[in-house]
């Protein structure tokens, strides 16, 4: 008998955000959850940053997914679309879409700051991912979106990106850039204001160079027509991330030395008002019953496996102590081979979700 696929109530939400450090298997788990969700009859979208070739192959999606969602060939009652997040492409599209006219868009595209530095602007990459999420939600073509995120430290930046953009847009620096003192008619200012402005300008000129300021001002100005739209959407994304239909899944590596990081991140998420799902401890090595495990003449490979086994079991024990309660910690074993096709992804999701049924 085949039991119909289902997603346990604890994870049955319209938006799942998968977060965690580098190399813990977030992207693979996001894809696995996507497959399971489609098998359970949902129209599902997986948004991911930088999937491996193996995973792209497993999902059967290529570079075309950079622009918009690509349908994964899956025999299921629901559907699965996969889309790859590309910050620069999203940024470009946004500029074209919201600029009041093509000339304004062109001004932005030609600005040196935009060309060379858009990618390094504080928070902009993260913010662009939020924009994509917003677009996808607005289209309304999916019952469930599973969002993969960049590694933990950047993930904090990532989640704060909407707040920071709103802050920045409201800042005096932006207002000043829109009304530079050196372009103001000096006769309209009082003498002390004029002197102060001149001293300030001279200092800025000496340290930064006039061109830097002019380029920056031009950049901010060129963006100005887009700002209102930015602010509104940033506000909505902020709300969405704290909505009760949104659940955060933290994926962590096993081993006691990973615990402080995981607990830190859980606390930060909670403080920021997000809803937390179970903690997924991934790549747990099995305990090794070897009476000679500690002996120095044991082959280094076997000694290593014994070490990894006891290390991971100890880490798991500690994390279960810290997060008691059924369904608060899910564990996944270290696999000899990473999942490389749809059935193995589905199996991975089942191995995880079955722990929520007990």
């Amino acid at each position: 008998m085949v039991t119909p696929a289902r997603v346990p109530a604890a994870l049955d939400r319209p938006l799942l955000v998968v977060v965690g450090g580098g190399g813990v298997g977030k992207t693979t788990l996001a894809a696995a959850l996507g497959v399971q969700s489609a098998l359970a009859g949902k129209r599902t979208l997986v948004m991911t940053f930088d999937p491996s070739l193996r995973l792209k192959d497993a999902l059967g999606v290529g570079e075309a997914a950079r622009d918009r969602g690509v349908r994964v060939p899956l025999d299921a009652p629901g559907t699965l679309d996969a889309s790859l997040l590309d910050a620069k492409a999203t940024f470009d599209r946004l500029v074209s879409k919201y600029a009041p006219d093509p000339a304004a868009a062109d001004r932005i595209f030609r600005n040196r700051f935009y060309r060379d530095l858009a990618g390094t602007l504080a928070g902009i990459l993260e913010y662009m991912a939020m924009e994509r999420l917003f677009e996808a939600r607005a289209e309304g073509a999916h019952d469930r979106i599973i969002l993969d995120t960049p590694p933990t430290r950047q993930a904090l930046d990532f989640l704060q990106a909407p707040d920071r953009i709103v802050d920045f847009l409201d800042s005096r620096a932006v207002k000043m850039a829109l009304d530079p003192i050196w372009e103001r008619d000096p006769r309209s200012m009082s003498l002390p204001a004029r002197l102060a402005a001149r001293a300030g300008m001279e200092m800025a000129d000496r340290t930064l160079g006039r061109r830097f300021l002019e380029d920056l001002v031009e950049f901010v100005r060129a963006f100005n027509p887009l700002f209102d739209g930015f602010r509104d959407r940033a506000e909505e994304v902020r709300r969405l991330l704290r909505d009760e239909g949104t659940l955060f899944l933290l994926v962590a590596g096993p081993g006691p030395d990973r615990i402080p990081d995981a607990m830190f991140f859980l606390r930060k998420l909670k403080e920021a008002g997000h809803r937390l799902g179970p903690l997924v401890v991934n790549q747990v090595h099995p305990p090794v019953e070897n009476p000679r495990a500690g002996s120095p003449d044991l082959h280094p490979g076997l000694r290593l496996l014994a070490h990894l086994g006891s290390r991971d079991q100890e880490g798991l024990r500690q994390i279960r102590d810290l997060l008691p309660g059924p369904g608060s910690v899910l564990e996944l074993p270290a696999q000899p081979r990473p999942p490389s096709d749809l059935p193995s992804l589905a199996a991975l999701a089942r191995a995880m979700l079955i722990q929520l049924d007990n």
Partner: protein
Amino acid sequence: MSVLDLLARRRLVVVTGKGGTGKSTLAAALGRLLAGAGRKTLVVEVDPRESLHQALGVEPSGGEVVQAGEGLWIQNVQAQAVIEGLVREKVPVPFFARKITESPAFRHFVAGAPGFKETAVLGHAYRATRGHRTPRVEVVVLDAPASGHGASLLAAPALLALAAEGGQLGEVAAELAAFLADPAQCAIFLGTLAEEMPVQETLELLETLDSAGGPRVAMVCVNALFPPLPADLLEAVRQDLWGERRRLQERERARLRDRWEGPLAELPLLPLDRGPALTRDLATRLGEARW
């Protein structure tokens, strides 16, 4: 040729690579190796979540310089603190310096100006190599952010030099960019694992850094290799975790080797937790690597 030969006259070693591949441990081991060879070394960590101190068994730095052995120090460096320190240097009156650093315009400029924070962190490391700091060190090992952010970090001074051309900031950035691009003084180390994504990211990073025409990679270090399978091992083990892992690692290592012909060091996965014993062991092995 050995790692110590390669780094003989370099003043700055930048360690980057994919997240979760043991960058901090590698940076600590390099620091230990250099200090052990008699070169006074400062290992600089940029991640605000400190972990470098664990690899060397000392207290967290919290921004201060902490001694971690004979001729070895560590320091956690945050851009904000560096920039405020610079303002205090330029504006010796504390009241005015505070007025500047606390003003919203300044804070937003620091947060928003592209490449500024990155340049400040690199600038801090640069000045340390010039003996501007106590203790006087000969070489700085920079435990840099992961690949993507590491590449932006390395590209920042050149971009800022271009953007702020004609100002003092531009001049400082240009000097720094020239220093980074000088292979006689700077070396970039890429840490990676012999797994698909880390190798992919390493190859992409090599390409990015190559095409940027800036700093060049001096060495790639493959971490956490499973030991080769002995011939007399049970078939069951050969097919299982160890055997599969090792096969996958050999394949990925070959893929890396195809594209990277420069120096490559290999470090085994050891039955030791992160800490001073592991760091010492890895430092010894790095020192013994030859090519």
